[in-house]
């Protein structure tokens, strides 16, 4: 079956523009995660949804970052007034969910955002 998909794969924005990044999780996966991977670094957690509820947004770096998952499936990460330091690969992952045990997170290919 299909894995996690993300669009666009590449995005170039001028500083100050707003961008929206889309994630389509694996069908039936309850949990959805966003991570940010700067060049030469490991991914860093941004936010986590269980169905439509955003349970943890502790990793969002500023109030310019906003994520939603209104119907508990597709998610959008929005960045307002982009800055050069926002340039990174944004990874989405999904899992079956549940907090009683670890469920493997399946990652999408990422969206590479470049802010000029």
């Amino acid at each position, binding site marked *: 079956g299909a*894995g*996690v998909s993300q669009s666009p794969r590449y995005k170039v924005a001028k500083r100050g523009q707003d961008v929206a990044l889309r994630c389509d999780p694996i069908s039936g996966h309850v*949990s959805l*995660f966003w*991570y940010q991977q700067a060049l*030469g*670094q*490991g*991914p*860093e*957690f941004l936010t*986590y949804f269980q169905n439509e509820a955003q*349970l*943890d947004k502790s*990793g969002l770096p500023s109030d310019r970052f906003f994520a939603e998952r209104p119907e508990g499936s597709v998610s959008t990460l929005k960045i307002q007034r982009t800055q050069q330091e926002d340039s990174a690969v944004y*990874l989405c*992952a999904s899992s079956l969910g549940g*907090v*009683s*045990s*670890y469920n*493997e*997170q*399946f*990652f*999408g*290919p*990422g969206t590479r955002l470049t802010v000029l």
Partner: protein
Amino acid sequence: AQSVTQLDSHVSVSEGTPVLLRCNYSSSYSPSLFWYVQHPNKGLQLLLKYTSAATLVKGINGFEAEFKKSETSFHLTKPSAHMSDAAEYFCVVTFVGFQKLVFGTGTRLLVSP
């Protein structure tokens, strides 16, 4: 707080020789530990996971890792490297009920013929 330290940013081996990628962790709770691999322009793929069962964990493509609590280590090994193993490898920590993953900075494995 939880964290992982990957001791080498780059490791170079020859095809057919053993691979050792080192990882030390810090966790206030009993950790769950993972190794992920990232090939260029591809998504992260889970290699193996430790979740408090057997301390020697076998993964895909001949990789294995041993959880050593006394040394707070979770090193990744493979007896014989293949050219297709060249990629970025991430050591990752979390614990049950704590959904987010905490990644190390990565080790780039280079395999020469």
